[in-house]
């Protein structure tokens, strides 16, 4: 009889609604987890990306040892060049500095570190590098080292290294080098490369996109840096 089954109907209805709601929230949760996982994979995916980056053992502009570990936990834009460079290095370093300024406006000072690494160990001594980077962004880090250390760093970053090993004092030469600067994430992994055709604005947009994806995937905490 209908009147006898009313409470049963209510219970059934409630159970139905509760199950429906439960299933809905469960699926939404799973979808969100999947979405985050996809983001995390995208921002750190290693398939199809060049294996740029790796350990290096250099010296900063104050003569103190500086390794790749010192950059862990930080976003960096790295440029390989030399101080006796006619125009390309200064232009790219200026562009890098301008991009860093744009990013710092939104994310605060030190959000991205500009790094200059010399590919000319024979002439780019520590004082030379220190003086050189003074012309550029205030937070720019300048790195150099001896011939072997620089060669190893270039190898890690797949940078063409053509500095002659034995240079006589007063000898002048230009160093062949690729003119990209690399965006590296807080784990020291390669994210993107920017060339002559990329404007400072584009660099800042792409970098901030990468930073946003990184944060969405859990940020430094999730990455363990």
């Amino acid at each position, binding site marked *: 009889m209908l009147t006898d089954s009313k409470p049963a109907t209510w219970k059934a209805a409630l159970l139905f609604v509760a199950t429906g709601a439960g299933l809905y929230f469960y699926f939404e949760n799973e979808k969100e987890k999947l979405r985050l996982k996809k983001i995390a994979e995208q921002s750190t995916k290693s398939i199809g990306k060049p294996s740029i980056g790796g350990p290096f053992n250099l010296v900063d502009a104050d003569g103190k040892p500086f390794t790749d570990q010192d950059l862990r936990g930080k976003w960096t834009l790295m440029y390989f060049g030399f101080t*006796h460079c*006619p*125009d390309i290095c*200064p232009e790219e370093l200026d562009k890098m500095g301008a991009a860093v300024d744009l990013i710092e406006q939104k994310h605060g000072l030190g959000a991205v570190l500009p790094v200059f690494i010399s590919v000319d160990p024979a002439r780019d001594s520590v004082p030379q590098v220190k*003086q050189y980077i003074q012309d550029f962004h205030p937070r720019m880090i300048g790195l150099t080292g001896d011939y072997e250390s620089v060669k190893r760093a270039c190898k890690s970053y797949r940078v063409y290294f053509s500095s002659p090993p034995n240079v*006589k004092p*007063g000898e*002048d*030469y230009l160093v*062949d080098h690729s003119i990209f600067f690399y965006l590296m994430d807080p784990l020291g992994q390669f994210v993107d490369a920017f060339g002559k055709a990329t404007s400072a604005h584009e660099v800042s947009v792409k970098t901030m996109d990468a930073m946003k994806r990184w944060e969405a995937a859990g940020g430094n905490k999730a990455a363990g840096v």
Partner: protein
Amino acid sequence: MYSARLVSKTSLGSIFNQSRGNAMWPFSSSSSPNEPSTSASSSTSATPTTAPNREQRAACWKARDEYFDCLIKNRVTVPGEEGPGVCKGEVKVYEQKCGKTWMEHFNKRKETELKQQALIGYRPPTPGR
């Protein structure tokens, strides 16, 4: 990929062989028999061994651009081949401000650029006074 050119061994040798006591880059200029006689040999004193700073670079680029403007005005297509008496003042300042290595680098690049322009029939606008 754009790359700065490595200086050829011959010009390097000529720079080194001409070493005087204080002749150091970037302000030492030595004219060797191999080079076109477009510049009077003028070496400035007090040669710094450090790379040029921002102001010095800007001064070099300005001198370079003035020299190239002069070449365009005189319809010269290869830097260095402008002939006697043409753009003499400009090239002197250019060499003094930039040094031989940078000059060769810029000139080579300009030559390529002008050749490409000629190929596509592009004529750069005549620089105003």
